[in-house]
């Protein structure tokens, strides 16, 4: 199993690159979701204040 992950002498460079890509995409996804949640909560709170 481990030999699958073997990139010869390039282990560090290849896997760090894949890591950079994965972390960047994940960070973007989290930020997109947080932004959507945040603005929706804000608008809901405002609507509630208006109703009461």
């Amino acid at each position: 199993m481990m030999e699958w992950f073997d990139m010869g002498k390039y282990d560090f460079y290849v896997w760090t690159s894949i890591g950079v890509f994965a972390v960047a995409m994940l960070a973007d996804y989290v930020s997109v979701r947080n932004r959507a949640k945040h603005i929706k909560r804000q608008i809901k709170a405002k609507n509630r204040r208006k109703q009461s």
Partner: protein
Amino acid sequence: MNRIIKFYHEMGSPPSFYRITSHWLTPLLVLALGLTLYGLIDGLFFAPEDYQQGDSYRIIFVHVPAAWMSMFIYAIVGVAGIMTFVWRMKVAEAVMMASAPIGALFTAVTLLTGMLWGKPMWGTYWDWDARMTSELILLFLYIGVMGIYAAYDEDPRKAARLAALVAIIGLVNLPIIRYSVYWWTSIHQGSSVSLMGGSNGIQDWDMLRPLLVMALATKFYFLYSMLSRAQSYLLKTEQHKQWVSKAIDGQARHKPGVSS
């Protein structure tokens, strides 16, 4: 033709844009995730080794799709900038400002993975070479567009027009990046794949396939991220309008657990 024009006009109106794109988000995310997993597994474990670069060339499967996206997204920012500036379309403002962060991120990924590829192949992480310098300028342009918008916070519509101006001027950088490896002597290798000229660098379909799959995956992810951010942008800038409250409450009604 009529349907295309109708669709264009619908997409230009914030409430319809919000309603239509809401249906696209989940399929886009699923496609992006599935293709990324398939492309990475195919590229890292099944594609053959390169006869010159060994396993190090596998960085191509994240580096090149990210680089393509960094330029593709800037073209979208620029075109949306023109639409913002000329027609003052609100949805174009949203698309422009929603594209900038993900474009900047892809540019940063391109630079970082490029450095990680450069070290074993060229013996250095960084060189002030035409390709690298112009890609770094692209990152600064993205930051400039976002920075101008954030700096002018009294009126978001005026801020968007100012940001659009920076975006339009920055378009001149795209052909410079594209042709930098031909105009100047560069340590960066030439294109491996080109839209018109076919694939003259990569001959092996088993190497080309994961690259194209990853290119598609990043396109889908960009669409997901951009549309979702554009929705948030429209909700935020239009929050005093009726359609926003309706859209939010409509969503809440579908979930019985959430009271509005």
